[in-house]
């Protein structure tokens, strides 16, 4: 489904080129739950951005269902992000002047996958699924951190994505709310959706079936990745 083939990433800063990622190879299938681990600043979020097409690698390729997303046109990437990928950010970004249900419906505004009525029905179902029923007409300002993150999760699921990218989804949550989000991610992966979760929390990573461990190759801070089963953490 999603393949990273010898992905390299380098940044240029003040005329100096710094290598971040060097030769990352990963193959993610439907139903896989990947935890991307590594110390802070190692390039976990950068790798996630490259996987979902928000960023481009300096070298190598990223393929989704056999098609390169590195060379894909802007419109194809927009469609991919809208319909095939779901996003859960560390901070639960939302439109603060739109109600909970309107926030959940946001991806459908940019999609023709569902009609307005179908999207609404799906959103109502997801509100119940993530456990924030009764809050659909509230503004996000009136929600707790955990409720907000669940709202964001519902938004990520609205168009039934094939891959969910989660960047430290439990980073700002207490244990109870963290577990709820992690349970939901597990449930999605069990239903056939691939999940890629960046985290440095080993408890969160324990929910994953696969681990993508980023480590420094040498003293130049260049990072490569090692894929392994959860038990290898």
């Amino acid at each position, binding site marked *: 489904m999603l393949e990273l083939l010898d992905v390299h990433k380098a940044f240029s800063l003040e005329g100096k080129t710094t290598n971040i990622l060097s030769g990352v190879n990963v193959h993610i299938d439907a139903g896989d739950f990947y935890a991307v681990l590594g110390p802070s600043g190692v390039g976990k979020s950068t790798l996630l951005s490259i996987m979902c097409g*928000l960023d481009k690698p300096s070298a190598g390729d990223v393929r989704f269902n056999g098609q390169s997303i590195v060379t894909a046109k*802007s419109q194809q990437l927009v469609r991919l*992000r809208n*319909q095939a990928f779901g*996003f859960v950010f560390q901070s639960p*970004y939302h439109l603060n002047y739109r109600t909970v249900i309107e926030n959940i419906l946001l991806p459908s*505004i*940019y999609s023709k996958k569902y009609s307005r009525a179908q999207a609404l029905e799906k959103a109502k179902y997801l509100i119940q699924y993530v456990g924030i029923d009764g809050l659909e007409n509230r503004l996000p300002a009136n929600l707790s951190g955990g409720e907000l993150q669940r709202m964001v999760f519902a938004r990520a699921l609205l168009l039934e994505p094939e891959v969910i990218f989660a960047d430290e989804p439990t980073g700002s949550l207490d244990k109870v709310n963290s577990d709820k989000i992690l349970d939901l991610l597990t449930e999605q992966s069990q239903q056939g959706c691939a999940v890629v979760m960046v985290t440095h929390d080993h408890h969160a990573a324990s929910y994953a079936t696969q681990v993508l461990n980023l480590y420094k190759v040498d003293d130049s801070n260049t990072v490569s990745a090692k894929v392994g089963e959860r038990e290898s953490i």
Partner: protein
Amino acid sequence: MNLSELKYDLYDTSLAIKRRWFRSALSSLGVAIGVASLIVMLSISEGTLEKTTQQYHHLGLNTLRIQSLGNDNTFGRGISEAEFIDIRKQLPSMAKVSAFIVQDNAKPEFNGRSTSASLVYASQQWANIEKLSLEKGRFLSPSDQVSGASFCVIGYQIDQSLNIDLYKSVISFNDYSCTVVGVLAQKEGAFVENTDIHFIDFNRVIILPFKLHPQDNRFTLGQLSEISIEMPETDADNILSLSRELKESLVKRYQGLLNYQVVSPLELLNKEKESQLSFSLIMMSISVMTLLVGGIGIMNIMLTHISEQTREIGLRLAVGASPQRIVNVFLLHALIISMLGCFLGGSLGLLMVLGFELFLDWPIKLSVFALVIGPLFSLITGLLFGLYPALRASQMDPIIMLKEF
């Protein structure tokens, strides 16, 4: 963009404006002032032109007037009979021609009442060319003209002052007397501001036969006040070319001496229109500059909005909004602000036009042109100054916008 997308983006934009209504209202003020000034300035310009046009219409746009500049106090002399006859020969046969002599400061008396008047010794066609109509009685007949009979037609105000009986009353002035056979209907004087055209107050004239003038040898002394020529139709080219020909021949005749002026109301009106057009263009330029300043204000506020909404834009891009859609939203935002300014400015402009007309009695006419180009310019301003911020928003990097991602 389809209708449902437009509806959603419009609602989104209205919410964004509502959240920052004060700032949005302030940013629309530049456009409002521009549109208001455009409406007021063009309305003043059009009103002034309309007033001037009406004045020239009173003079007759199909007429030409050769007016004498000679008088007792100058070295110049008026137009003589021989010259009048020569000029007449140059005119097309269809043209109506008349001449008259004016004497101001007459004191007509009747039944112990007296008033002030101008004596006009006019040839037969004069009343016709000046489009004079009668309140009562008749005009001087051709036989009155030939015989130099002591009949006269008086202006409306003189009748009001002297209270005459038609065909019976004999009014006297300057050692002469005449029987009143007609009274003119009330008429505005042929007076145009800022020109040298002689002013005749038709309500205070006493029209006498040409022959009745006290100096029988008047023509040889060159005392004609004016030769009036009326062309059969208002053919602008004919009138203007005739005016040019007359001026050229008179320059030759008088060897450059300024004894006369050839006045073509049509020519004057055209000049007036030209100067009004220049005035309007200057006024429009000022208003457009104001609109441009307003546009810069809108651009500034749009850039501020974008910097405040960075994460929101990043989120939209991340969940599938196309850059085009982001452009549409911010363009719509800029357009709504500028059209809001247009509405405010339009209302203010209309109120000001109404106020100037009611309270200051200015010659002002609501400019339909301004009402059309005001919104058009506002639309262009919104598009022009909204485009850069919108493009900038759409080309931002969602990763940087979301920072932590």
